[in-house]
């Protein structure tokens, strides 16, 4: 073959195109795409869940594509007939949105080996919950000597100018507001008391973070001393030497189910099922319960141990007793309006 300018250009263009659109060379078999969450979730899933899945699925290819729940929904919505994601991970609010928008398959419960072993709250036919997130009070033990015991402690005068909260964009922010509403006579459909309570909290507020991740930075910088916070996020901070402690308030820690779903029209349904089975298995859940992950297991065959048993619940019966689950179906109905209202009213 002669090395003409034309030939060279063609080769260069083809190579360039293959580089720019790697999908061209995959033809049909694409790896399983699992949209996990960013940060510690991705770390935990890469280290524990992916190896377990590959063992169960004969070394099948899997790609982690970490992003927020709402971004997963947007991505799948944009290409419903040929979704770029096979398995989605969701907080309770977005999970119901995904189901309502017909983006997920029912989980093949009959085929599942582990579904029946899950605690009742985790048995969701449209996508089971392999993990819990737990929200309680977090505080700096160097400046707050007597640990707080109740959500109401945030209003104590001695914490004036030291309290942090997040806005309602996040599951944590919305869940916290609903809990406040319940404490003051409201409910999942009546948030007014929570807004009144936050109004009274205003002199104490040092910061309203844009997302829960920012709360971690604020603790590190000494900007806040007490805030509602996620159990797992706090363990990571603690491991890095930041003086911070978690305590479940006496009203009960708020628990969010993190559910895992097979995406409708996914070309990899069989592999997706195997991944979810791995996530529900006692082996994976027991490993994820240990340091440094400390993720609350939902499989009743896993005995609670370590920091989780100490700080949250000794066994699965205590989960049902100690944790507060919220009705996200009701919350979703008005959540958009609440977020708007929070934008307008809560200015520090």
């Amino acid at each position, binding site marked *: 073959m002669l090395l003409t300018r034309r030939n060279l250009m063609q080769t260069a263009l083809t190579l360039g195109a293959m580089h720019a659109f790697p999908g061209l060379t995959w033809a049909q078999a694409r790896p399983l795409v699992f949209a996990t969450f960013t940060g510690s979730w991705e770390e935990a899933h890469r280290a524990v869940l992916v190896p377990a899945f590959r063992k169960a699925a004969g070394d099948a290819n899997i790609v982690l594509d970490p992003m*927020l729940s*709402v*971004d997963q*929904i*947007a991505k799948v919505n944009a290409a419903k007939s040929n979704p770029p994601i096979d398995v989605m991970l969701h907080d309770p609010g977005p999970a119901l*949105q995904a189901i309502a928008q017909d983006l997920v398959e029912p989980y093949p419960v009959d085929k599942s080996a582990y579904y029946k072993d899950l605690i009742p709250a985790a048995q969701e036919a449209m996508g089971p919950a392999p993990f819990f997130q737990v929200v309680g009070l977090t505080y700096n033990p160097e400046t707050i000597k007597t640990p707080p015991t109740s959500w109401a402690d945030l209003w104590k005068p001695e914490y004036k100018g030291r309290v942090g909260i*997040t*806005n309602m*964009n996040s599951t944590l922010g919305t869940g916290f507001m609903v809990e406040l509403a319940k404490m003051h006579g409201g409910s999942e459909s009546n948030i007014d008391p929570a807004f009144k309570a936050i109004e009274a909290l205003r002199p104490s507020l*040092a*910061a*309203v*973070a*844009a*997302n829960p991740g*920012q709360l971690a*930075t604020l603790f590190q*910088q*000494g*900007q806040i001393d007490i805030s509602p916070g996620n159990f797992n996020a706090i363990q990571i901070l603690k491991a890095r030497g930041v003086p911070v402690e978690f305590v479940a308030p006496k009203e009960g820690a708020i628990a969010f189910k993190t559910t895992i779903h097979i995406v409708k029209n996914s070309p990899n349904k069989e592999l997706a099922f195997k991944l979810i089975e791995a996530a529900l298995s006692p082996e994976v859940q027991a490993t994820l319960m240990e340091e440094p992950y400390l993720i609350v297991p939902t499989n009743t065959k896993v005995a609670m141990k370590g920091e989780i048993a100490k700080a949250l619940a000794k066994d699965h019966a205590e989960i049902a007793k100690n944790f507060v689950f919220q009705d996200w179906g009701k919350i979703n109905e008005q*959540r*958009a309006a609440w*977020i708007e209202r929070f*934008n*307008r009213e*809560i*200015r*520090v």
Partner: protein
Amino acid sequence: MAATLRDVTTYDLKLAAPLAAGFVLFFVTPLVILLALSFQTDPQGGHYGLSQYVNFLGDRFSLGVLGSTLWLGVKVTALTLLLGYPVAWLHQRSPGWARGVIMLFVLLPLLTSVVVRTFAWVVILGRQGIVNASLSWLGLIDTPLKLLYTEGGVVVALAQVQMPLMVLPIITALSRIDPNLADASSVLGAGHWRTFRKVILPLSLPGIVAGCLLTYAAAITAFITQSLIGGGQMLFMPMYIYQQASTLQNWPFAAAISIVFLVAVLVVVSIFNALGRLSRGYANA
């Protein structure tokens, strides 16, 4: 004979075709889709109308967000100009080796990610940060000042983060000025200040306008710095759009406010451009 010579000073427009095609495919098309989306009256689609725009323009809160975003850009641009011009001036007046050092310091921020630069500002402005620590060590304050999550903090951080965009065009403009002009001015009896005001400043105006344009556009769309330094209660347009599109899944309203923001920015940009044209006329006069 002359008629057969190829004109080498003009180029075939076809050379620009790949870029133009890419531009149409990946920029114009999404923009048209965005515009179409903004006319949907509800997120489920179906009806079309102007209701999203009416919602935005009839709402004092939303207009306030737009106004504060545009105003933030003005403040950042002014501060960047104030701090950046002397740097460019110094660069122009320094010997060769010092120029290299100054250029390195100007470019250094561009070599790190915006996220890293912004986190550095979180450390500087925090309660136990560098500013508060030095002030309390000097005995000037008893309790730490609140600097993080304030608008002043956002302005300062943005000004530093966007500084190269201002300094580089000004350096270019200053380097094109004939040094003899300054000498001529002083020979004719003008002092340093008058020479600067009457000769150097007008001649560097095109650089200033270009720098302001870049800084302004970068400052008002700086999602990361705005949300990390500004926190959750300081709402600017980029965060507002993100919140509507992502958290609330209200794409039509998000599209409408994106279009409003785009138009508002275009207006500001064309004002800058008009100033730029004026300044060129002034510089050539």
